[in-house]
């Protein structure tokens, strides 16, 4: 009987060993250019994104055939011109380009990418247009139009609110673009956009905001401004006598963490959209990454998750193209198979990522899931 138990145990052990077999290095290297904003206004997402990318590489350093992906990192300091210069400098040895930059940068490098015909994976940028205009670009994040559509639908059909005010920043392309998408969609849903004004026009005066609340009978405000302007607005807004809710665009929490870490309380109760939620169910991939990050005293957030997923999709594309030919890699990036990301199941179709996103409510510096939208 003892022999039987030992035999069964051995079978279990051997089958688990098989699973963990690691490839041996072949010596061949696949070069991938990376442009990341490590300073300037985009530093928060650039640095966190790179953490996710390198975590993924540490966990899976080689392709199954032993070839290694080597990243050549350049910091564009959140400057479009620098990014353009770096794309110009890409040589024939590089197989692909990863960018951890804003939408403005991504739009700015379209001519260079098109000219070089280099498959480009935009990890952070959310603008709708670059994947339409440039056939060598793939977007890993949700698009502005998708974010606006989900926001409007959630407000209209889940919260059953019909009167919305839109506050945007007139000097911010992203803010204006997403606000326009939102307004269009909300109206389509028979909602009423009571006002649409730039934040600058309020001069950050309490009486101006109070007048807005008193006159317009608002249910909710859609706020698409950056962290600094949102901070100033919420500081004043939270002192008003009102139960009007705030719905903010993505990335606000991360930016606030970077710029105003001691004032996170002002975000309590704000609804927002993100790829990530602190209360989401973690899949096997996210559990592996969380364990790794914890070991290195880091934590999982939206941008580290995106960085990790960028490695996954690039890895799969390279795996599918045996000679690492740029055209093949580009096709595999733009039309991927369905795979388990850190945050949800992912698949690219014509360069656009199809993924679930979360509507969260911020409480005590954490985004708590309200709903997950596919």
């Amino acid at each position, binding site marked *: *009987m*003892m022999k*039987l*138990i030992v035999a*069964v145990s051995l079978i279990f052990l051997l089958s688990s060993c098989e699973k963990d077999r690691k490839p041996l290095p072949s010596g061949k290297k696949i070069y991938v250019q990376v442009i990341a904003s490590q300073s300037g206004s985009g530093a928060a997402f650039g640095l966190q994104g790179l953490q996710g990318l390198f975590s993924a590489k540490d966990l899976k350093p080689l392709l199954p055939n032993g070839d290694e992906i080597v990243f050549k990192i350049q910091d564009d300091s959140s400057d479009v011109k620098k990014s353009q210069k770096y794309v110009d400098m890409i040589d024939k040895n590089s197989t692909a380009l990863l960018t951890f930059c804003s939408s403005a940068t991504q739009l700015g490098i379209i001519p260079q990418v098109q000219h070089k015909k280099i498959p480009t994976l935009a990890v952070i940028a959310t603008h709708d247009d670059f994947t339409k205009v440039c056939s060598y670009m793939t977007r890993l994040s949700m698009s502005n139009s998708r974010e606006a*559509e*989900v926001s409007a*639908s*959630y407000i*209209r*059909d*889940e919260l*059953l609110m019909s009167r919305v005010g839109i506050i945007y920043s007139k000097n911010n392309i992203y803010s204006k673009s997403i606000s326009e998408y939102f307004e269009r*969609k909300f109206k*389509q849903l028979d909602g009423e956009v009571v006002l649409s004004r730039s934040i600058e026009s309020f001069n950050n005066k309490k009486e101006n905001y109070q007048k807005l609340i008193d006159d317009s009978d608002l249910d909710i405000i859609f706020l698409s401004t950056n962290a600094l302007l949102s901070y100033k607005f919420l500081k004043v807004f939270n002192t008003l006598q009102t139960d009007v809710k705030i719905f903010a665009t993505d990335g606000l929490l991360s930016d606030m963490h970077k710029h105003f870490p001691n004032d996170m309380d002002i975000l309590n109760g704000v609804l927002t959209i993100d790829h990530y939620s602190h209360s989401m*169910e973690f899949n096997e991939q996210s559990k592996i990454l969380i364990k790794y990050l914890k070991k290195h005293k880091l934590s999982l957030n939206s941008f580290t998750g995106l960085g990790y997923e960028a490695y996954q999709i690039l890895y799969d594309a390279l795996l599918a193209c045996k000679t690492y030919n740029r055209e093949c890699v580009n096709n595999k990036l733009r039309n991927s198979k*369905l795979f388990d990301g850190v945050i949800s*199941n992912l*698949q690219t179709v014509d360069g656009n990522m199809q993924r*679930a996103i979360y509507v969260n409510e911020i409480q005590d510096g954490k985004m708590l*899931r*309200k*709903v*997950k*939208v*596919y």
Partner: protein
Amino acid sequence: MQYHTKALFVYDNEALDWIELVKNSDLHVKITSCNIELFLQEPLKYINEGEHLIIAADTQEIEKCLHVAIKHSLSIGFLPFARQKQLIRHYCLSSNLQSNLNIALLQSDNSVDLIECGDKIMQVKATFGEIPLVSNISYKNGFFAFIENLKRGIKEFFKITMQEVSITTENDKKIKTVVSGGSLVQSSYKGFFSRVSGVKHSVRDSQVKMILVSPFSVIEYMKFLFSVISFSKNSSNLSNAVGLIKSKSVTIETKRSKRLHIDDSFHVYLPVTCKIIDSAVKVSAPEEFWEANPSSDQNKESIKTDNLPDEKESERYRDKHIPFFSYASEEHFRELFSALRDDANMHSIYVVLMLLSTLLATIGLFANSIAVVIGAMLLAPLMAPIVSLSMGLLRADTKLLNASLIKISWGVLLALGASALVTYILPSMDLTSEMKARINPTVLDLGVAIISGIAAAYSKSFKEIIQSLAGVAIAVALVPPLSTAGIGLGKGDMLVFLQAFLLFFTNLIGITLSATLTFFVLGYSSVLKSKKSLMLIMLIMIFISFPLYTSFHKIVEKEQVSKATRYERFLINGKYIIVNSATLRYTEGKDVLDIGLKVREGLNRNDLYKLKREIEKNYKRQLRINASVEYIL
């Protein structure tokens, strides 16, 4: 209160500083002082017969003084050092010198008994062998000393070894048994000895009192410790694993222990005879001490050794480490084992009840009536053979195992046949929600099975528990799925049969294993066959682990689906779709998702097609989806 008019203060070097204070006492007592070494050399040089001694010395020197006091009829009072916690506690003194001095000078007509072991005199306790956390208790102060003591004691739990011991009383009665250790204790009615023995004792009852500790397992030893801590003064029960001997004298002989440790300070070699010195010495002590130690003339010899192993059992335990869980011999639980053997045998009542309960359950399931199904559970006689099966498994008792397996198998066949027959006779009826619940089990179903198995084994172990209650709990887990399986057979629907039967079988295994484990924890495994039976259980576990895992995995998956869907929304062709509820089930070999949706605008074919694709992408499999749609106005 009357004080002595004169006294001799005997001290060791540690008490040098106290001489002035003692001499200048304001109680008008004439006090002379003397170093204890000089006093012990020539006591009568310093004091006359019948006079009073005040002692400030360590325990070994006190013991020598006691010899002198007994010999020359001296009365004594104590000035203990702060570290002498045991002495302070025993005589109800305090750590305040002045207060102790006032007590030590009191005239007292009351004497205490002392125990003489060999040539040594014991005041408080004497121990041999291993009684962790009792015999080696430290009287050091502080939290860290307590933790250190506790850690050491717990480590020793796992090293407790039983040894043969022989005790002979004054009336020449000889007790032979195996124990981990024993202790002679001079205890007040509030003290340790009274708590363990459940009888009030006193240091003035003219008896040597001895406890023998014989735990069959670490768990039992823990229970004993718990009784030491928690026994109320009014309890009259003798703690488990403990024997009690009261006599004028006891002679202790052991095979392994060489020494009897006295008052944590000195020892005598075994074998030794310990005898009472009745009213040995007059002691100055507070009123509280005399109240806690009333004099007693009920000093008949008493021996209570029912909880100790007899000579036959002693053979098994001698010179062995005690196991974590207890073992039991059949002789020890004769009644229980004979009841279990009866339960494993087939008889007509079982057949009739099994048939009636299944018929009732089948009709209840068709009527979709929980009340009728519960009625069926009250009749079901499944508990008895399952409990016998568990015990047979634990003790690797092939006879019991076979008999109970045969009885269960007959019961299952009868139940399947009866419910299939009812289904065949009844006009064609659809599956009711009660039946569907049995082919789509949840985690809670397995929970019911496991807990009812524990309850069954537990209730079988104690006569005072009404066993039918646990029987109903078992029936909850077994009768409805079994009847549903029979309905599947009757309908010719093998999928319903297999799914319901899988639930029945999983629950049966869950109940049996949890009952087996409960019997194991309660100490019913056989000392001889336990390893063999554990192997058997392990083997069964390995063989059933795959179907159990598959079944459990499906259960967990269903729970996850219904939990996750509470937050899931779909944006399809610009239409926002709220998932209100979702239940995953397995019918006709396919995964079926019943989904409740809420929308604000109508869904067309294309929307539904895309929604299905999105859902399938999310669950990574093909599904049959039944959706019901509600409109939000």
